[in-house]
């Protein structure tokens, strides 16, 4: 197929990855990156906001051509759609209320590298001990739920939220003690909470979270996938991704 225009969907309500401005236009890390990628892939791009719940079925129904919505590349998802190479790979970690006794858990500010299926990591064991009997909030159906259930499911209560934002509200309200999510997301949540929330414990990085975040495409559109993978490769290589990432996230999320 001869790609001239490509429709890319995103939620438009997941700051700072992507969000809607008051004038109705889309902004954030992904819309800006998409512009770069489309230029390099030499296609016309149309960004369309849609609801997270319906995104993947709508992609397969043909309503859009690509998804760019902080979509982690996972084995489950690979069964139904295809991915480009990742344009971001974010660490994940815990956050808690500023004045909580759980703040400043051991290892705060450090990084721990984990592989797929790895267990018995010393820092994680330490957190398990420290968070015993507490309630941890996660966003339902994310790559993090398996990790949290595997490591903390026995000793702590885990509560699943439909969105990260709901979880953050409950974290501030004191209904739960800890939240676990990607640190980039937390960074902006912490900023919005005006310092009421803080990170605690080490950031966890590595292949345990899969390959990172990539663009989702229909399985049949391998040509489109390859065009954008090339574009991402070049944007990573010349530091465009790093620049945008630091603009929006304050850190570099380029996959390493």
């Amino acid at each position, binding site marked *: 197929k001869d790609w001239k225009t490509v429709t890319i969907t995103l939620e438009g309500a997941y700051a700072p990855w992507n969000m809607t401005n008051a004038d109705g236009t889309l902004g954030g890390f992904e819309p800006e990156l998409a512009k770069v990628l489309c230029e390099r892939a030499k296609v016309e791009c149309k960004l369309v906001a849609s609801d997270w*719940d319906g995104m*993947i*079925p709508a992609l*397969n129904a043909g309503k859009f051509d690509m998804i760019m919505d902080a979509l982690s590349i996972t084995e*489950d*998802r690979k*069964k*139904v*759609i295809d991915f480009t190479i990742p344009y971001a790979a974010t660490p994940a970690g815990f956050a808690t209320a500023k004045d909580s006794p759980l703040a400043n858990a051991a290892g705060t500010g450090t990084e721990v590298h984990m592989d797929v299926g790895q267990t018995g990591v010393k820092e994680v064991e330490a957190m398990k001990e420290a968070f015993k009997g507490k309630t941890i*909030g996660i966003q*339902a*159906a994310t790559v993090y739920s398996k990790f949290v259930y595997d490591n903390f499911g026995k000793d702590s209560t885990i*509560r*699943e*939220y*439909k969105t990260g934002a*709901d979880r953050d*509200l*409950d974290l501030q*309200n*004191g*209904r739960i003690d800890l939240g676990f999510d990607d640190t980039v997301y937390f960074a902006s949540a912490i900023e919005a909470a005006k310092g009421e929330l803080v990170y605690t414990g080490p950031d966890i990085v590595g292949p345990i979270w899969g390959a990172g975040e990539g663009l989702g495409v229909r399985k049949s559109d391998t040509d489109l996938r390859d065009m954008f993978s090339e574009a991402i490769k070049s944007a990573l290589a010349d530091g465009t991704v790093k620049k945008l990432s630091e603009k929006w996230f304050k850190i570099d999320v380029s996959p390493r």
Partner: protein
Amino acid sequence: MDFAFLSETTMTLLAAVPTTLALFSLSVAIGGLLALLIVWMRVGGNPVLSAFAKGYIFVFRGSPLLIQMFLVFYGLAQFKVIRDGPLWPLLREPFVCAVLSLALCTAGYSAEIFRGGIRSVSPREIEAARSIGMSGFLLVRRIIAPIAFRYALPSYSTEVVLMMKSTSLASLVTVWEVTGVAQRLISHSYRTMEVFLCAAIIYLILNFIVLQAMALLERSLSKHLRAPPVKP
């Protein structure tokens, strides 16, 4: 058709049915009692209470349950008074909040339905009761309530079914009932149609049972409206 997947999905969804039923039965019961209180305020004759009841009904019938639930769960907890208050151990629980907001919402609707029932009681039958010396609570208990409830029953059955469906919003506040579990299954498997079809069938069966029970109740309460038994 992937029967293995369908049966696995159905089993997973069935595991959430008790949650749905608990949400449903508690909120219908509490909402019903609340509705009685509100309808009493609405028709009682005290202008202040009546205005309050009117406002209550307007707000809870006029805005989406999703927003109400969000504000009850995430909104109330914003206030330090509530967090430090005596009710916090209860309000802290997502299940309690889900039941509370479902009950608050259905109370608004049910109050209107009950009021409609009361209005359709023949003023003449009320007058007949007054004329033998009934008044106040006795009049309500013996004459108005039974007749009004019978008139209100068809609309109330509809409201009860709506309630069963409304429980599907409770996953917003982390109570994972059937629809929430279905959505979670979808975000793992991305097989929207199959999962939702299973969920749809479960709801249909639950509602069918509820409606059947209501119809039975209606039948037993309408002996006086049916054609007389034909004597041989």
